């Protein structure tokens, strides 16, 4: 069994409480980091090449390096919106081991010179938000947060900010707008949040799982980290498996673990002898893989080569008893509901495609409908303000291309 990093304490019942966490070696990473120079931490983080776990896979150290050294407040926004369908890993981290995330937040903030951090958590996770708030209050009491942390002279405040039901607020600039108290409409980039972010100030935005990796990188070093997973894509991922498998759940495994093994060995194989038809490998936005395409290492680059993406590492398993038209219906319903409406191709395109698919599902479709879907989705691709447009178009196009025969048979 591969060594666990992020989920190593999940078997312990009370590790969400600070005393138990400290007993397990918790907050040693913060102690070590506060004795290092911020530049030394940044160097180590760049070496570790920790790639973002929120979806895009951008190296965290490089992102932090973009923050300009200006005389302005700087902010950290923790992306705990977890809206990508199929994804539930951050919920496990925050409810089982919130202090591991807090350590990551403290170290990141110290490294970048941030004194104020907000955890933006999806509104539905009320119980998780309460747990985080308890953990934060414990950390203040023990002197790991607040003024002059462990006599280092470094100050940091952390608070939890609950969203209210909008997938788009997981997109980093929409998250900023939402946190500022506005509608969650994405911003045009550039300027990038690293220079103009929250309250017009330099801002780092990282995913929960990304930040939770940092304490162990500080304790064990970048070489240890790159030794797990792949040299350029180090560490483990928490794969979330759902759909038609025997044992849906989270599986922390080295990056590059074969998708076939994740499904068959770790998640117990197909449910009740059902047969595999397709897999969505990285959350709903990821283009679908056919049953004969799943012999593939789960890392960012391998999936890009397979014209899909690792995204949030959420694996949705689809069986031969499920109609791809129904899958397409669920996908298009989601994006037409979640489009923020700011740009026309995304707003009109997603709802138009959804209407066509619904008509097809009612048995009133024609061959031209499939062509229309492809044409409409292609016209969304690359023509929108934020990546939600692409995230909608890509899975739609992949289903239309790879399962065209099946869709036609339903006409």
């Amino acid at each position, binding site marked *: 069994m591969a060594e666990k990093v992020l989920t190593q304490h999940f078997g312990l019942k009370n590790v969400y409480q600070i005393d138990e966490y400290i007993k397990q070696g918790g907050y040693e990473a913060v102690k070590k980091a506060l004795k290092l120079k911020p530049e030394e931490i940044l160097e180590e983080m760049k070496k570790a090449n920790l790639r973002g776990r929120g979806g895009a896979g951008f190296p965290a150290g490089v992102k932090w390096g973009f923050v300009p050294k200006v005389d302005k*407040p700087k902010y950290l926004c923790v992306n705990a919106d*977890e*809206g*990508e*369908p*199929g*994804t*539930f890993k951050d*919920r496990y981290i925050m409810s089982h081991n919130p202090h591991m995330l807090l350590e990551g937040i403290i170290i990141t903030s110290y490294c970048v010179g941030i004194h*104020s951090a907000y955890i933006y958590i*999806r*509104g*539905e*996770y*009320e*119980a998780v938000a309460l747990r985080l708030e308890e953990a934060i209050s414990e950390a203040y009491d023990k002197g790991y947060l607040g003024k002059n942390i462990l006599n280092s002279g470094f100050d940091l*405040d952390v*608070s939890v*900010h*609950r*969203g*209210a*039901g*909008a*997938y788009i607020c997981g997109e980093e600039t929409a998250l900023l707008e*939402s*946190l*500022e*108290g*506005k*509608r*969650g409409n994405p911003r045009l980039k550039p300027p990038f949040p690293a220079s103009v972010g929250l*309250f017009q100030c330099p801002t780092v935005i990282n995913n929960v799982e990304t930040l939770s990796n940092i304490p162990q990188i500080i304790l064990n070093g970048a070489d240890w980290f790159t030794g797990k997973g792949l040299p350029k894509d180090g560490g483990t991922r928490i794969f*979330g*498996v*759902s*759909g*038609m498998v025997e044992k*849906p*759940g*989270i599986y922390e495994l080295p990056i590059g673990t074969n998708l076939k093994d994740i499904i068959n060995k770790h998640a117990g194989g197909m449910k009740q002898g059902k047969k595999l038809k397709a897999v*969505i490998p990285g959350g*709903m936005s990821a283009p679908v893989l056919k049953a004969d395409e799943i012999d593939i290492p789960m890392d960012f680059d391998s999936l890009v080569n397979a014209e899909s993406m690792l995204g949030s590492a*959420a694996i*949705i398993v*689809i*069986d031969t008893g*499920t109609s791809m038209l*129904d*899958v397409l219906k*669920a*996908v298009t*319903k*989601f994006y037409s*509901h*979640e489009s923020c409406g700011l740009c026309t191709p995304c707003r009109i395109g997603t709802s138009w495609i959804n209407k066509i698919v619904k008509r097809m599902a009612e048995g009133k479709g024609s061959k031209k409908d499939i062509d229309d879907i492809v044409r409409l989705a292609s016209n969304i691709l690359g023509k929108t303000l934020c990546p939600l447009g692409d995230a909608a178009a890509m899975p739609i196009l992949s289903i239309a291309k790879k399962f065209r025969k099946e869709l036609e048979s339903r006409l």
Partner: protein
Amino acid sequence: MSPEFSGKVRKEIDRIIARYPQKEAAILPLLHLTQQEFGFISPESEKLVAGILGIKPIQVREVVTFYTMLNREPIGKYHIQVCSNLSCSLLGAEKLTDYLKEKLSIEPGQTSEDKKFTLSLVECIGACEQAPCMMINFDYHGNLDKKKIDKILDGLE
């Protein structure tokens, strides 16, 4: 009667506002509080929140209408939100929704006559490993089947 927050809630509001360098950022936390206190967000509540934050009521309206969790109409005592996204529908969410519709004699988007239940269909709620799943108010219920639904609903006062 126009809504008012109690003294205790007012203090909580002051604490919330103090977390942000700009007051408006407290709007979502305040709207969550409003919904918790009054059950939904009425035009009067929008004015109340606007007054506290020193912004125009229309700015509050803009926010309220953007987010699906903020209700502009009263809802039932128990808000049943069934996930209708992919992992749940693969495992039979549609049939369970039909069962709930029949059992409660309401359609999604409606509230039962006794104001006990509101039924909604929602997108992914982040509990796909327990598909099919639903939320009742803020409690998650997973691995649902008809029997389990019966038991859960029977347990509600």
